[in-house]
C-alpha cells in the first residue's frame, strides 16, 4: 500500500484567475509539496466571510509549472469568495488530501475518463499524468451546451477528447453514456461528475466488467479523517471517510445499487 505524502498547511497566492461563467480556474503559486496524486484534493480556508466557517474541499485540477490549478464552481458563499478572488489574494491551503485515481503502469492500458460539470477538474490532472506516463486516454466530457465545456484545450493536449452536450451544440447530443467513445474497449474507467452521471457510467462498467473508479463529494468538515462527517458506506469496511479512504473509490467497494 502506498504511503501518503506528508500533508502541509501553507499560504498560496492567486497568480492568475480565469473566469468561466459560474466557474473560475485559479492558478495558485506557493511552496507545493511533492507527490501530489491525481484525484487528491485540498482544503482551502475562506478567511473573510460572514457566512462560512469551515474550509472548502476543492479537487486538484492540475499541477503545472509549479502552479496549483483549482477549478471552482460558484456554489455558495464559500466558493463564491474563491470565484471572486483577485490576483495576489492569499489563501491558506492544506494538501495533498485523500487517495486518488489508480494510475495504470502499462503503457498500453486503454482508459476512459468521463466527467461533467466541476467534476472534470481532477480528470485533467489524471489525463496529464497518464499522458506523461505514455498513455493516451480517451476523455468524454458532458456539458449543457458548447459554451459550458470546461478546459477543452487543456484536455485535448493529453488525450482523445469526446464531447456530449444536452442540446447537441457540440459533439454528440445527449448524455455522455450515449457518446460513441463507448464503442471502444477499455481496461479502466475513471468518472467524476454529478451523482446520476457517475451512477450511469458505473452501471455501464459493471455490465461490461470494466474496473471503474468514481470520485465522491460528500459533505466534509476536517478533510483529515478525524471528524467522521463525510462517510460513505462500503462493502468491506462499512462507513469510511471519503476524505481519507477516498475521494476516489473503486465502484465495487461501494454499496451503490446499479
Amino acid at each position, binding site marked *: 500500500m502506498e504511503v501518503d505524502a*506528508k*500533508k*502541509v*498547511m501553507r499560504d498560496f497566492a492567486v497568480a492568475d484567475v480565469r473566469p468561466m461563467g459560474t466557474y473560475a480556474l485559479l492558478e495558485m503559486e506557493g511552496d507545493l509539496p511533492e507527490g501530489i496524486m491525481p484525484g487528491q484534493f485540498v482544503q482551502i*480556508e475562506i478567511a473573510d466571510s*460572514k*457566512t*462560512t*466557517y*469551515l*474550509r472548502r474541499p476543492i479537487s486538484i485540477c492540475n499541477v503545472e509549472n509549479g502552479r496549483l490549478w483549482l477549478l471552482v464552481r460558484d456554489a455558495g458563499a464559500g466558493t463564491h469568495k474563491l470565484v471572486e478572488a483577485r490576483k495576489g489574494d492569499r489563501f491558506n491551503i*492544506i494538501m495533498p488530501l485523500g487517495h486518488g485515481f489508480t494510475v495504470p503502469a502499462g503503457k498500453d492500458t486503454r482508459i476512459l475518463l468521463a466527467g461533467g460539470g466541476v467534476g472534470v477538474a481532477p480528470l485533467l490532472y489524471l489525463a496529464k499524468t497518464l499522458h506523461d506516463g505514455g498513455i493516451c486516454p480517451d476523455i468524454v466530457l458532458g456539458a449543457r451546451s458548447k459554451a459550458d465545456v470546461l478546459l477543452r484545450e487543456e484536455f485535448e493536449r493529453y488525450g482523445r477528447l469526446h464531447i456530449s452536450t444536452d442540446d447537441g451544440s457540440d459533439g454528440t447530443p445527449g448524455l455522455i453514456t450515449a457518446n460513441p467513445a463507448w464503442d471502444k474497449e477499455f481496461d479502466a474507467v475513471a468518472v467524476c461528475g454529478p451523482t446520476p452521471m457517475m451512477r450511469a457510467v458505473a452501471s455501464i462498467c459493471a455490465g461490461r466488467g470494466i474496473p471503474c473508479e468514481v470520485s465522491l463529494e*460528500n*459533505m*466534509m*468538515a*476536517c*478533510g*483529515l*479523517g*478525524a*471528524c*467522521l*462527517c*463525510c*462517510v*460513505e*458506506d462500503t462493502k468491506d469496511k*462499512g*462507513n469510511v471517510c471519503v476524505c*481519507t479512504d477516498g475521494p476516489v473509490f473503486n465502484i465495487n467497494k461501494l454499496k451503490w445499487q446499479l
Partner: protein
Amino acid sequence: MATLNVNIGGLELANPVLTASGTFGYGEEFADLTDINALGGIIVKGTTLAPRQGNPAPRMAETPSGMLNAVGLQNKGVDYFIEHIYPRIAERFSSEIIVNVAGSTIDDYTEVCRRLAPLPRIRAVEINISCPNVKQGGMAFGTTTDGAAEVTRAVRAAWPKTLIMKLSPNVTSIVDIAKAVEAEGADSVSLINTLMGMAIDVKRRRPMLSTITGGLSGPAVKPVAVRMVWQVAKAVGIPVIGLGGISDTNDALEFIMAGATAIEVGTAGFVNPRAAEEIALGLAAYCEENGLKSISEIRGII
C-alpha cells in the same frame, strides 16, 4: 519562565490545552500538521464497548460560526482500541492520552473502563453522558441529576484513576448536574458538550442531517459555554475543564478567567489544525507578557 502545569484530579498536565473528543481523531490524523506533544493531552474519540457504525450520512451541516454534527459515536470498539490503536499512539505521543467513554447502559460504561484500566498511559477517562446524537448516547443520563449521579457512582467503582464527567448543556441547571457528579466522586467535569440543534435544506425541503437534529459546536456556542463554566466553577470544588468554541488564545483565556483549570479545543481544529498548539504557545506568551508565575493566577478571577 511561567508554569503552565495544571492538575486535573491527580492528572498532571504540562499545559491546560487538550483536544476535544471526536474532533482530533487519535492525534495521528493531525500529526503531519501540528506537534501533538506540545499539547497537555489529547482526548480520543468516543469509545464504546462494541464497535459502532454510527449514523448514516449526511452527518454534518455548516451553520453561522459553527457546525452541526450527527456522527453517532462511530468507533471500532474498546477492544480494537486497546489492541491496535493504543500501542501505536502510546508509543508515538508523549502527551497525556485520555479516552472518552460512551455507552447506552451503565454496564457499557463500567465495562469499557474496566478494560481500559490496565493501560498505563491512560491515566484518565472522560465519561460522555451527553451525546445528543444517539438515542442511547447517554444524554438521558446527562440531563437528570439522578441519571448523572448513577453513572458516576458506577464508573467511580470501576475506574481507579482520574475520572472526568462530560456534561450536557441541554439542561435547565448544569450546576445541579455538576454538583451531583461531584458528590459521587468525579475528579473533574468537562463542559460543554454540543448544544442540540437542527438545520433545514430549504431547497430540498428536508433536514440537513440524517438524524434531523444534531450537536452544535464552534464559536457560535462560546458565550453559552463560558457562562456555564463560570457558573459551575463557582459551584463545585473539583477542577472544571472548559470547552465550546475555543479557537485562539484569547478564547482559552476567557474560559480560564471564568474558572476553567484546563480547556479543550474542538471544532476549531477543523479550520486550523494547529489551533491547539498555537493556544499552548499563546498561553505561555501571555504569562510572560503579564508577569504571571503560573497560569493559575488568573483562573476564576471573574
